[in-house]
């Protein structure tokens, strides 16, 4: 309880920090009225928080459902599929703020289905290690096709697609925030409602069944919900890796592995991490800015290497 409260305080502090810093210095007296704060920093910080939270929750749920501590939306190819869906929508000018997440959702689901087929390659039972290999392969494939689509697109579509691909959170506005707020609650509610059976699944599929979990329906719900979360995140901010991987591990170490606690914690932790990463991306090379995905990768890759080592030696 105390630690959970601490997490909320840290999250609020991160949001405050992200609003306070930036390439332009906003004097304190004008702070509340500054358009830079109200139209740029505040929606951007909030969007970053929701996107990071969505990725954190998706990662935690995916790790449980595919029974692999290395799973996250990025490594499982979901982000890549969502990115491809979004770029196709943009290239064919069918994007729009409300339709792009749906195209990304279709892409994420298709990628998940493909990865799942590969994961079953060993026989009847899902092989967790094959899943990650499949995810990386499908993600790379989707990335290649995405690049092909972008390079074949006409000038206007190209510019839009590149802006989106590398833009990170720079496209944040109150409008994109509204889109995210509309799409996020349903998948989040689906996952939070699945928290208890996810605890059981950590023991294996067969033991989970014997303890009363309907594994097949649970798996469908979690894949769809995690795909939608990833799709919304990708549609508004491009492909951002590693948040979904490292946040759940941090939260597990901090608060234990009960999903009723872990999933909300992963939301707060993911939001905090992405808001801080984005603040760094804006400030470090000011007045230019880095795509936030580069910052999360700089933090995430070493953590990933550490996790691989721990997982393979145990």
């Amino acid at each position, binding site marked *: 309880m105390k630690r959970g409260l601490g997490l909320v305080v840290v999250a609020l502090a991160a949001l405050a920090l992200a609003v306070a810093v930036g390439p332009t210095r906003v004097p304190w007296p004008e702070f509340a009225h500054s358009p830079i704060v109200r139209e740029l920093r505040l929606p951007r910080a909030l969007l970053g928080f929701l996107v990071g939270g969505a990725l954190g929750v998706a990662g935690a749920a995916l790790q449980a459902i595919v029974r692999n501590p290395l799973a996250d939306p990025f490594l499982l190819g979901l982000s890549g599929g969502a990115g491809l869906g979004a770029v196709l929508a943009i290239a064919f000018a069918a994007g729009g703020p409300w339709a792009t997440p749906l195209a990304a959702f279709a892409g994420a689901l298709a990628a998940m289905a493909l990865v799942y087929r590969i994961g079953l390659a060993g026989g009847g039972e899902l092989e967790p290690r094959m899943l990650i290999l499949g995810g990386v392969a499908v993600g790379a494939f989707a990335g290649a096709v995405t690049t092909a689509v972008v390079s074949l697109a006409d000038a206007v579509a190209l510019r839009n697609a590149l802006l989106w691909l590398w833009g990170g959170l720079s496209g944040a506005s109150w409008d994109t925030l509204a889109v995210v707020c509309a799409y996020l609650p349903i998948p989040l509610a689906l996952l939070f409602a699945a928290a208890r059976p996810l605890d059981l699944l950590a*023991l294996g599929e067969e033991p989970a069944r014997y303890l009363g979990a*309907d594994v097949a329906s649970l798996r469908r719900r979690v894949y769809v919900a995690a795909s939608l979360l990833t799709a919304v995140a990708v549609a508004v901010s491009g492909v951002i890796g590693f948040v979904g991987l490292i946040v759940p591990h941090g939260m597990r170490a901090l608060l234990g592995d009960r999903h009723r606690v872990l999933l909300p914690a992963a939301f707060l932790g993911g939001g905090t991490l992405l808001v801080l990463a984005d603040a760094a991306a804006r400030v470090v090379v000011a007045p230019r800015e880095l795509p936030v995905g580069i910052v999360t990768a700089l933090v995430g890759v070493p953590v990933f290497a550490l996790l691989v080592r721990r997982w393979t030696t145990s």
Partner: protein
Amino acid sequence: MDHELILELRGIACRYPGAVEDALAGVTLAVGRGVVQAVIGPNGSGKTTLVRVALGVRAPREGTAAVLGKPVASWSRRALARTVGVVAQREEALFPQRVRNTVALGRYPHLSPWRAPGSEDEAAVTRALERCDLTALADRWVATLSGGEYQRVRIARALAQEPRLLVLDEPTTSLDLRHEMELFGLARALADDGGLGVLLITHHVNLAARFADRILLLAQGRAVAEGGPEVLTRPVVEQVFGWPVQVERFEERPQVIPLRQRKDTP
């Protein structure tokens, strides 16, 4: 006493996809209150398939499986988990857990998404821990336990489900003599004191002979014999395990002694 019957399998045949032979054929079995029913057979004789069919995880090709008189396929997983607790053969925890927490997972079928665990759930967990002699280990990490302690934790978790039938699938594989005896003794005591039905899958002929009320012998998916421990005769055991044996008696029960040399059987 039919109303005391918990699990009833009739004429079960089962085949895995792509296989040419049935994993089970014509197997019939009934487990009632307070009874320890052992299922014995060599590796690959269909013992685990029997558990899967009994628990509705695998649909039989022929025959019927019923729990408390109701076809197992029509049970919801949660309702079934409140009636039958299973200690499966294989289990691999993904993340480290403490003993009390993993036993508390047994309460899942009693909780709804809206109901948090209450005092009765706490009490059930505490009772299960006591029953399996784990109270002193409740705060230990599961990974630090010995093989015997770990199996007791898994039995405690199944007991926390407050089932009427406990299914133990090869619970003593890789346990030493003392822990084997303790575990079979625990299974026996649960049937005697709590009136639990126990379905015990094992390849320990002698322990089954000493602790079980009834024994089903399986070979290549077929029932070779079924009945009290006296069904363990030399021809039956030799047929099931494909090895020469001698059968002696100890405490009124048959005990099987494998011979050293394989006879030149026709």
